[in-house]
């Protein structure tokens, strides 16, 4: 009998401290202490952000991608959040890193078939702008985009731009979360924003809260949502704290520190 289950979520597995390349335990006090993400530049690539929401409390800039000749280009945007999803992600980041500097790039467009190019353009811009962290709570299944996305995520990795990408909610192959140059995130069901699990069986790297997550929603509202989309910004928030405490860290170091402080790293009894 086939067991139906939500894709890319925690099954509660533990990970041996032998996987951690450091004396264990690594403390959260050392990892981020009282850091609030101050001065860490974060880009949210999503549906836009409602900057007036009290759980978002302002953002540094809002942009979108528009058709251009010969390529789409990133331009200032005043549409706010056209779906609610981006505001939810921004609010989650704020809840963990209240002093991080947030910037939004809206990638929702009417032409569904053009969305791949829009996503590539937005990510390329975010890498060029040198954001420390980019929240990518979406993915594409289009094989035609795979190589360009792969090159782009590699470039981000080498440039010190850390992409944090939600794994697809369904058991399908999509990108960019599957690339090892990004931090990929699935869901667990614990109602604790700081509860983090290291996945012993990649390609998903970490599990963060993604089930019944209370979030900000445009118009001053709040909602309770489920999906891996909402797990990724939890990891972004923790990364922002770590980067305030350890500003020279890049993707590789963030991966190691997150792994070392994960709640499921312990010796089997």
């Amino acid at each position: 009998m086939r067991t139906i289950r939500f894709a890319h979520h925690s099954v509660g597995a533990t990970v041996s401290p032998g996987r951690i390349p450091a004396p264990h335990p690594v403390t959260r006090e050392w990892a981020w202490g009282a850091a609030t993400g101050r001065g860490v530049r974060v880009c949210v690539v999503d549906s836009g952000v409602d900057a007036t929401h009290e759980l978002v409390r302002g953002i540094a800039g809002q942009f979108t991608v528009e058709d251009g000749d010969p390529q789409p280009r990133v331009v200032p945007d005043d549409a706010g959040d056209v779906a609610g999803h981006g505001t939810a992600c921004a609010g989650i980041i704020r809840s963990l890193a209240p002093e991080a500097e947030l910037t939004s790039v809206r990638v929702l467009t009417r032409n569904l078939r053009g969305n791949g190019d829009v996503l590539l353009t937005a990510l390329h811009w975010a890498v060029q702008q040198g954001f420390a962290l980019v929240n990518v709570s979406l993915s594409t299944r289009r094989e035609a985009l795979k190589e360009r996305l792969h090159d782009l995520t590699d470039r981000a990795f080498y440039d010190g731009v850390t992409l944090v990408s939600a794994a697809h909610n369904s058991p399908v192959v999509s990108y960019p979360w599957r690339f090892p140059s990004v931090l990929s995130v699935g869901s667990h069901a614990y109602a604790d924003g700081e509860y983090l699990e290291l996945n012993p069986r990649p390609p998903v790297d970490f599990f963060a809260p993604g089930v019944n997550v209370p979030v900000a929603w445009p118009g001053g509202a709040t909602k309770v949502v489920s999906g891996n989309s909402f797990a990724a910004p939890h990891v972004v928030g923790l990364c922002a704290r770590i980067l305030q405490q350890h500003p020279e860290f890049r993707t590789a170091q963030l991966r190691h520190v997150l792994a070392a402080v994960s709640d499921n790293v312990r010796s089997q009894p």
Partner: protein
Amino acid sequence: MNATTHEVILRSTVRLARLSFDAAAASVFLYDLDRDALVFEASSGVGEDQLVGVAIPADRGIAGWVASTGEPIVIRGVAEDARFNRDFAAGTGLVPDVIMAAPIEHEGEIIGVLEVLDPRLESVGEMVAIDLLTELAAQSCAALSLLLAGRRERARHADAAGALGQLAAILDTADPQREAAVGELVGALARLLGVRCISPT
């Protein structure tokens, strides 16, 4: 499969989705390429079919986000969203508190969104529910894809000013005396389009 068969499948899909989750309603939006919009195609339950044919911009709302990203999602507390009430839900007679939505994908392309309104998720949990809805969407996608392709084909034939329409009009005037001329035309077309000309033996 003809259009009627596709519509039967469409109706079956929404009914199955509603029954699977003991939901107040379920509905399907299909992506209209020409209008760049999501069109409300069928629903089961409260407000059944009241909004069939209504189009919403593909870059707006939960359905737009799901269609754009291909990600399924569950949202609770939708009733508190004033924009949602005013623009769409109130017209159906149902303002849901919970929306669960999954993309309908065919061969890597998103062709629509399957939504369930006020599903009962307590017994299965959100994780299983999302996966189950995604499976329902996958099951119906092939038939829905054919439905859309059929519509596009009919739309093309219906365009009298289009190239095919003009050709059809010319051929309608051809009588038996022009058999040879039409034969030359068919041969030339076959060479132009790189297809084999099938001749009766």
